[in-house]
């Protein structure tokens, strides 16, 4: 039988068209649109990745903001603005095109006339979106971790979670402390992460801290975010006999890696580096029982011991049919309340007035303070200096706060299952 059943002589033009169109395809889709109501409303732009690999987190972040906007409005809106209501204007940044993040942010500012922005969840997208916000003089609160955001001398950028460096610095000590309580020695460390800039930097930071803490880094692996099989990599990692694996990456990749590690017989702890897939509902759903015991660094968790958290979490679960309120949704929820308070304090919906009020903000009670440390304020560079990272562990199919003690909901379980 011939192996050349159908043969054509493709012109270079066709191949060129394929290449051009592939590039076009990689550009992703457009924004999902949305408009703010006119008169008596203050628009908040919500640029997030709603398509692509980060869509689940982006949608969660958007949902958290929309819940908070409804809560603020139900509580009477912005009283110093005669009860003005908030209105959220979503936009799709895509997951992999910082240029699109910039262009949709520009559109939100110039065409939709938003007074403030919350976004864009992913560090690379937040960097370009915040540049547009800064140029336009519109305040932007971000859920992204990267240190770069607050190193640029911007005046309109406010970073709610702790930066990557703080998370990276605490990852190893947190895990050491948490596992010391269970008398589990951790000596040999493997670090596995996707090779996107933010997570790679975080992984390298973790490896560096582990070495400085006297641990032996036996394996460091970086993989492409669209990896389709993790067998070879996982065997290489397990071959180094790690006591613990630190893992970062988008949800699909994280699922593949954990599934493969477990089926190859690795029963030690897997610790997420913070952000990304390990905190997503989809991660728990896909792994089933294998998810229990997996740990991750986080900047927020639904079970923090603050008055009102239980109610917020329950309403989020009911409204969006989710098993828990995820980190990025919680951060967006807090961000909206902080913006609302800033508008209240400023008595204005002008972006520059809101930014000035944000710089003087000090939230220690209520939903606007629902971050680890229960205080939200911003330094001159836009950092929220009173918050700190936390360690969560999947138990009974949901992430639960296990470290530090200030935000511990349950003690860590000894080993992964």
């Amino acid at each position, binding site marked *: 039988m011939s192996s050349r059943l*159908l043969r*054509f002589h493709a012109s270079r033009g*066709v191949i060129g068209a394929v290449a051009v169109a592939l590039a076009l395809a990689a550009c992703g889709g457009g924004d999902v649109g949305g408009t703010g109501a006119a008169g008596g409303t203050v628009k908040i732009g919500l640029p997030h990745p*709603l*398509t692509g690999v980060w*869509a689940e987190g982006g949608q969660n972040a958007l949902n958290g903001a929309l819940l908070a906007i409804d809560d603020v409005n139900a509580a009477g809106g912005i009283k110093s603005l005669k009860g003005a209501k908030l209105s959220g204007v979503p936009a799709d940044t895509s997951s992999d095109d910082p240029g699109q993040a910039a262009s949709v942010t520009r559109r939100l500012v110039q065409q939709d006339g938003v007074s403030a922005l919350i976004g864009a969840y992913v560090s690379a997208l937040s960097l370009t979106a915040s540049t547009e916000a800064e140029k336009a003089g519109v305040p932007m609160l971000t859920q992204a971790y990267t240190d770069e955001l607050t190193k640029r001398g911007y005046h309109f950028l406010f970073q709610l979670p702790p930066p990557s460096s703080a998370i990276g610095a605490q990852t190893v000590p947190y895990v050491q402390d948490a596992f010391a309580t269970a008398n589990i020695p951790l000596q040999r460390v493997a670090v596995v992460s996707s*090779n996107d800039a933010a997570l790679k930097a975080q992984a390298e930071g973790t490896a560096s801290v582990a070495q400085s803490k006297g641990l032996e880094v036996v394996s460091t692996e970086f993989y492409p975010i669209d990896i*389709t099989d993790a067998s070879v990599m996982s065997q*290489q990692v397990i071959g180094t006999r790690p006591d613990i694996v630190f893992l970062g990456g988008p949800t*699909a990749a994280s699922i593949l890696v954990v599934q493969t590690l477990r089926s190859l017989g690795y029963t030690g702890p897997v610790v997420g580096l913070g952000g990304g897939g390990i905190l997503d509902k989809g991660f728990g759903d896909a792994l089933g029982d294998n998810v229990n015991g997996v740990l991750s660094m986080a900047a927020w968790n639904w079970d923090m011991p603050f008055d009102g958290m239980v109610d917020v979490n329950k309403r989020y679960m009911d409204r969006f049919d989710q098993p828990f309120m995820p980190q990025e949704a919680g951060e967006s929820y807090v961000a909206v309340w902080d913006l609302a308070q800033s508008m209240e304090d400023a008595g204005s919906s002008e972006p520059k007035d809101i930014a000035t009020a944000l710089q003087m903000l000090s939230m220690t009670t209520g939903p606007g303070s629902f971050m680890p440390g229960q205080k939200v304020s911003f330094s001159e560079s836009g950092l929220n200096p009173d918050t700190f990272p936390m360690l969560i562990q999947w138990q009974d199919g949901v992430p639960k706060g296990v470290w530090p003690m200030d935000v511990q909901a349950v003690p860590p379980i000894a080993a992964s299952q």
Partner: protein
Amino acid sequence: MTTFAQAAITGLLLGGVYGLVAMGLSLVFGVMRVVNFAHGEFVLIGMYGTLALYTGLHLNPFVALLIIVPGALLLGAALQQVLISRVTRTTDLRQLLLTLGLSLIIQSLALIIFSPSQRSLPGFAWGSELVRLGPIYVRPAHVVGFVIAVVVTGALALLLTRTDLGRAMRATVDDAEMAESSGVRTNRIYVVGMAIGVCIACIAGAVLITYYPASPNAGQTFLVIAFVAVVLAGLGNVVGAFLGGLMAGLMQQFTASFISVELQDVGLFALFIAVLVLRPNGLFSRKQAA
């Protein structure tokens, strides 16, 4: 040696499904000269369709193919009749825009219906567990997927070479007008070609969901690899596309094993570029560009 064997086996098994995706793409191009940018989304339809049958009717995903296959054939035929026929064998940008638009629509529908969450087959151990065969680990779903890919490739080869329908399809490919004047109803051939192309993509999706989580953009991941496989083989070379898929899988795994996991796609695209430069019509093409 173990590393080499592991990379070879994993690469071959993964490559079989890459090849399946690539084969459908190549067939549609071959028969209709349509570069189908919605092909990844047909893979996605196969993934979500299987997911729905698994979670809704508790059907084994491989048994679910008995429903997926006829459904996909009908879908492909309907799409050809309603949409693709308008751009078949055209050379302008309309086919590019139409298939890209179709791709975005299917992705958006998936986003609305299934949410952006990663969805996999809960409790389906064939896809999540590895089985040890001596020093080598294999995922049962990979093996079944590979067998399905080989069977589909063989069946398609037989169809094209040993049946009247296959001969009519090849005649249409060579010269549609001449075939038409000889009594071949080319429009029907286009419908059959598109139906088979979509069907193969959906079969690939049904196999993939057994070990790779579905999300609205999952099809794009495999489309890019499929394009590489198709160009490696030579556009329109159907069985060559399957071999191109095997090569893509092997290249990824060997690069991951012996150079760096991080560079596995770099290895693949380095091969792609080398083929474009040295054999622009593909590795399995007899006639090379001057």
